[in-house]
């Protein structure tokens, strides 16, 4: 059954091709069902392949479909590497993608470009599967660029609005910086090993010179931070929320942004072979990103921006896990995060849909009675991300923190602080959206005006709701005076329920109590086993750590309860403008690029004009000048040519005479 593996990417590709050519003719509901069906079938295939993979030695199976680039020693095949890591990725990508496709049928209902949305989604799933299943770096890069392009298409899906189009461009350009690093890493890998196929070069990694390994690891890291939105390249992800909400759930939370983590886990032997500051750097960047993004999330007013910064923060946790050698913990958190963050985004989408495209949390509140299913599933997601036992997020986050403590206490403490902030900002979101007073409809207008007056300095207003006008007709008759929030229809609710189920129980994949229960650790052993840091947690230490994490999570929730429901503390003392503006990082970049940066680029442009163009044009001018002089000897007189032939012959003979001695 493992031989069917090629079907996993082929099915979404077939769906894409069908929709790209006939999407318009197929029309609204049916094109959505085709897209969903293609991905769901891919999921079923993945399950069959998974069952078959148990029978393979070391749970690894390699399939070469055909030769792609034969160029001397450089050979790239279209081939599939199926091992525990790529199998895990393929399973959760296809699984979550099918649910989100189903959800999108409800969410995108009435959009004028409904078929095109599913075309892009299918292309995205195909690219993502190529990324994880490819058996060499070039194929991974192909998928990497494919998901980047789809991300761009989908962020700017409602491109009629200027902000959406520029958010797409921002994501694309920021990713380019990372892609540059990845490309250099591919070149360097070929240079060092003579091959880019994982199964060929990874076993050779321990014998690699340390400087080479360090350089490759550094460049791969640059690639990873671009795609996975880490400091300093995280600025594109919050803006990417301009896209439709299912896109945010699928691409910018569950799958694409985890590609960087996947890549680093995939090349773990190279990280082990590199200098010891590389893992430290990865851990510190991850930890710093987790902390920074969590503080920014505290002060956002747009429901999707909170979740976006939360995603950045959770990705930071995964990088921390990679840096401290907890590769299986990184994958564990990636899976649980995919469940609960997709759930939270879809829940947020349901709220936005029900509130007629309102994204500002200041205009929500008390929605749990109107949207019971959304509220209950969202609460499950909230408890999972906050790290409340026994929900999935608790186990995966705790796994990472245990590895962090193994490496350094400081990383552990920062991890705990971030966990506290996570619990706090997620509780803030839940309390403001589903509990408290209703701040929509007639009763809320006065209060809202009051609130706006106080937060005039808040820059969020300026760059907030960049949502499209998919539901304009629904919107038209509902001004703010007559707001009637409603629960969503079943295609949107079913994915929420399924995801909530998994967000609740996914922790059983890797319970830390006995080795017997660590299924994921044992399953990933063939991929990361040798390079994984080894933890030997005593019962006492484990209990203390688990209790500490639980306390932290509950403390965060209680703090948010006191601030946002009991109003003991003025929220404005926590939601500092400094955080609301994302530590002024975007503004600093704008300022730098507008000032010194621009001058620098002008200087480079000048250099290009004078030196590079000068050299090229100089060669041209010299040729023309020389020709103008030389053409005068071609005067058209046959006798002149004959004379020149004669002179040449005489000179040749004279030269020959001097060379030959008689």
């Amino acid at each position: 059954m493992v031989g069917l593996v090629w079907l996993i990417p082929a099915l979404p590709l077939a769906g894409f091709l069908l929709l790209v050519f006939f999407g318009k003719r197929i029309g609204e509901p049916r094109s959505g069902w085709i897209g969903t069906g293609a991905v769901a079938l891919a999921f079923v295939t993945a399950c069959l392949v998974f069952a078959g993979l148990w029978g393979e030695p070391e749970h690894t199976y390699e399939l070469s479909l055909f030769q792609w680039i034969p160029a001397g020693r450089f050979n790239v095949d279209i081939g599939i590497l199926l091992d525990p890591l790529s199998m895990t990725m393929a399973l959760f990508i296809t699984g979550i993608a099918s649910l989100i496709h189903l959800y999108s049928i409800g969410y995108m209902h009435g959009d004028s470009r409904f078929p095109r949305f599913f075309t892009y989604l299918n292309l995205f799933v195909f690219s993502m599967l190529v990324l994880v299943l490819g058996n060499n770096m070039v194929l991974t890069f192909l998928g990497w660029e494919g998901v980047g392009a789809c991300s761009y298409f989908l962020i700017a899906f409602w491109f009629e609005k200027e902000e959406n189009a520029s958010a797409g461009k921002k994501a694309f350009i920021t990713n380019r910086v990372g892609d540059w690093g990845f490309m250099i890493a591919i070149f360097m890998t070929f240079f060092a090993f003579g091959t880019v196929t994982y199964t060929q070069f990874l076993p050779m990694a321990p014998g690699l010179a340390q400087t080479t390994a360090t350089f490759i690891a550094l460049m791969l890291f640059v690639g990873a931070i671009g795609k996975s939105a880490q400091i300093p390249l995280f600025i594109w992800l919050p803006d990417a929320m301009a896209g439709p909400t299912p896109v945010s759930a699928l691409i910018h939370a569950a799958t694409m942004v985890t590609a960087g983590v996947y890549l680093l886990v995939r090349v773990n032997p190279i990280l082990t072979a590199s200098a010891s500051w590389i893992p430290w750097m990865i851990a510190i960047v991850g930890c710093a990103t987790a902390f920074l993004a969590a503080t920014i999330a505290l002060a956002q007013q747009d429901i999707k921006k909170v979740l976006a910064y939360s995603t950045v923060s959770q990705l930071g946790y995964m990088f921390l896990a990679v840096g401290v050698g907890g590769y299986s913990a990184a994958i564990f958190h990636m899976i649980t995060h995919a469940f609960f963050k997709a759930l939270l985004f879809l829940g947020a989408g349901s709220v936005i849909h029900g509130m007629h495209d309102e994204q500002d949390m200041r205009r929500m509140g008390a929605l749990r009675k109107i949207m019971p299913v959304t509220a209950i599933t969202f609460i499950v997601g909230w408890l999972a991300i906050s790290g409340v036992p026994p929900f999935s997020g608790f186990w995966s986050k705790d796994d990472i923190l245990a590895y962090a403590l193994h490496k350094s206490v400081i990383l552990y403490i920062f991890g705990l602080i971030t966990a506290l902030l996570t619990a706090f900002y997620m509780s803030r979101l839940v309390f403001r959206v589903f509990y408290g007073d209703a701040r929509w409809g007639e009763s809320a207008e006065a209060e809202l005006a009051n609130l706006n007056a106080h937060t005039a300095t808040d820059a969020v207003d300026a760059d907030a709701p960049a949502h499209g006008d998919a539901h304009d007709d629904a919107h038209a008759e509902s001004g703010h005076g007559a707001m009637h929030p409603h629960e969503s229809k079943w295609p949107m609710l079913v994915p929420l329920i399924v995801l909530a189920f998994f967000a609740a129980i996914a922790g059983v994949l890797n319970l830390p109590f006995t080795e017997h229960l660590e299924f994921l650790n044992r399953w990933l052993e063939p991929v990361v086993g040798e390079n994984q840091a080894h933890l030997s947690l005593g019962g006492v230490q484990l209990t203390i750590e688990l209790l500490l994490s639980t306390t932290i999570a509950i403390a965060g929730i209680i703090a948010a309860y006191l601030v946002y429901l009991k109003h003991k503390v003025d929220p404005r003392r926590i939601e500092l403008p400094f955080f609301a503006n994302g530590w002024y990082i975007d503004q600093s970049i704008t300022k730098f690029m507008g000032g010194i940066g621009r001058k620098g680029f002008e200087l480079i442009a000048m250099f290009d004009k004078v030196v590079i163009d000068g050299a090229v044009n100089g060669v041209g001018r010299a040729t023309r000048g020389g020709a103008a002089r030389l053409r005068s000897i071609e005067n058209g007189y046959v006798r002149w040519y004959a004379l020149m032939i004669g002179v040449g012959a005489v000179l040749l003979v004279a030269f020959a005479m001097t060379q030959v001695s008689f």
Partner: protein
Amino acid sequence: MGSNLSLAYLMLSAILFVIGGVGVLIRRNPLVMIMCVELMLNAVNLSFVTFGKMLNDISGQIIVFFVMVVAAAEVVIGLALIVAMARRRPGATADDLRTLRG
């Protein structure tokens, strides 16, 4: 045949060659120029035969046949060009035909 006689033949060959060469350079009538070229070729033929005799080597005479064949072909083309030229521009000299100048 003594070496003096050979020397005389070579001198004659050189004289004929120079006459031909100077003729090509100073005359402007295309027909005369072709004739001068023929003169140069035959001067060379003469020297080939002479050298062949001096070195007792038959290949000197063989090469002459080749040269004669080539010369015949060349004359055919040359005369054809001259006829075509004379029809188009009667009385034109070689110096009048310099359309291909740089």
